[in-house]
């Protein structure tokens, strides 16, 4: 265990390292900031898009119709089996009576007397159905396959286009984001590593003296580790601040200038986005700083 004064000393030396190596440190902070900034933008886009997809998913339902000879108990037994599937979020049973009521409400509104003739003979007597809402639209195909295998199921109505489009676009956006972020993070690791290498070269004589005097590996390495962590930390705090400031303004701008989007998109509030984005970005910044410095120390510092 080291003394508090030792930790303070290494912290001070880490800060001095950054000061001695201003241009490289600035370049590293800027790259890190650019990475985290882009990460934040993608995170916000993906977060909002997922919210839209989730919203849309909640509206996408599979409708299951049953054979005429099935009793209500048979239908409910099939419904119980379907309801146990993990893909199912919510199921609503629509009885023939309910189906007729809904139909009347929709098509005979204001002309209720026209439907009076059907009161004794429900034209939708065979329309008992389940409306099934999914946890994840990408799982629609597997659930439909299962439902079709059930005895007594007459027809399954589904929307492949909506489900597939939402699912595919979601995946595509995720892949593009991941690829860009990985490339940028690798660049950040490389730049931080270069900065630390320059720092080690600047302090080559000092390190040699430290080692001969009897400094432990911890004391020789720690200032460079701190340098990397500080670069990562500052490089993630700056874009987080900018993004927080910009997010609300951009959402307000979109809502004001693209009014038609208001009906199809529900943007997440800044607090909800930054609740996860802040710890992830800070962890990424510090982690990359740590990784960059550790790689360099292992390569260039023989202690």
């Amino acid at each position: 265990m080291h003394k508090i004064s030792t930790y303070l000393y290494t912290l001070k030396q880490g800060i001095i390292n950054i000061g001695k190596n201003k241009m490289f440190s600035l370049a590293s902070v800027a790259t890190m900031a650019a990475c985290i900034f882009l990460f934040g933008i993608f995170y916000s886009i993906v977060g909002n898009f997922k919210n839209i997809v989730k919203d849309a998913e909640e509206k996408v339902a599979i409708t299951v119709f049953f054979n005429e000879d099935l009793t209500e108990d048979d239908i409910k037994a099939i419904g119980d089996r379907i309801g146990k599937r993990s893909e199912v979020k919510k199921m609503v049973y629509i009885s023939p009576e309910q189906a007729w009521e809904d139909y009347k409400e929709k098509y005979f509104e204001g002309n209720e007397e026209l439907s009076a003739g059907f009161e004794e003979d429900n034209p939708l007597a065979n329309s008992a159905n389940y409306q099934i809402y999914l946890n994840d639209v990408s799982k629609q195909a597997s659930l439909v396959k299962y439902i079709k295998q059930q005895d007594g199921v007459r027809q399954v109505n589904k929307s492949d286009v909506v489900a597939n489009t939402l699912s595919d676009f979601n995946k595509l956006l995720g892949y593009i984001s991941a690829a860009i972020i990985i490339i940028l993070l690798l660049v950040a690791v490389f730049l931080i590593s270069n900065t630390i290498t320059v720092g080690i070269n600047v302090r080559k004589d000092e390190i040699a003296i430290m080692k001969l005097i009897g400094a432990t590996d911890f004391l020789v390495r720690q200032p460079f580790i701190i340098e990397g962590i500080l670069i990562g930390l500052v490089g993630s705090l700056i874009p987080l601040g900018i993004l927080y400031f910009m997010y609300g303004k951009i959402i307000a701008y979109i809502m004001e200038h693209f009014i038609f989007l208001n009906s199809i998109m529900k943007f997440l509030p800044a607090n909800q986005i930054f609740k996860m984005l802040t710890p992830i970005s800070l962890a990424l910044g510090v982690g990359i700083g740590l990784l960059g410095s550790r790689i360099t120390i292992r390569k260039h510092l023989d202690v």
Partner: protein
Amino acid sequence: MITLSHVSKCYTEGIPALNDINIDIEEGEFVFVVGNSGSGKSTFLKLLTKELEPSEGTITVNGVNLRKLRRKRIPMYRRNIGMVYQDFRLLKDRNVYENVAFAQRVIEKSPRQIKKDVPLMLSTVGLAAKYRSNPKQLSGGEQQRVAIARALINKPKILLADEPTGNLDPDNAWDIMSLLDNINARGTTVVVVTHNMEIVKAMKKRVITLKKGSLISDERPVV
């Protein structure tokens, strides 16, 4: 205190920098190691600080067999050895006080201990008045005194000096040798590598002579 037993060091196959060296240095001794360039003097010092490993033989310092010394223990071992160099190796961005304090900071001495020890050590080497000076503002002799203060601040049992007067004029060279003699008189074992034969002859100390990696003489002073 320092024992080299059949020590050889080869950098490249077949060309020994040191060849079958046997030396015993007692605690409190003052020893000169002399020889021309390429005689193996620097290799000898680097073996003692464990910057290099011998190709053959055994080195024991303060009862520690260096071959068996684990990597993790090297910093602790080095704290018992002070090093002084021809080019001083001071930190140019720090003043005299900070250069000496640096040696204590890196072995994790408390700030209170540093504040107590550094002024005392600077008085010992005669630089108390110049504690705020930058190394660039000091003469060669004064810079070497700072280096000696830095080497001694952690109270090592052994002081190794590699050509400590190599960059100094004769007056400063004599001052430094006199300081090293005083340090030795207080009980520190001093090993000085030099080719300044004038000083070696005048100081009448034990002289180990190396030539092309071999020990060719080991003369002790006549008491």
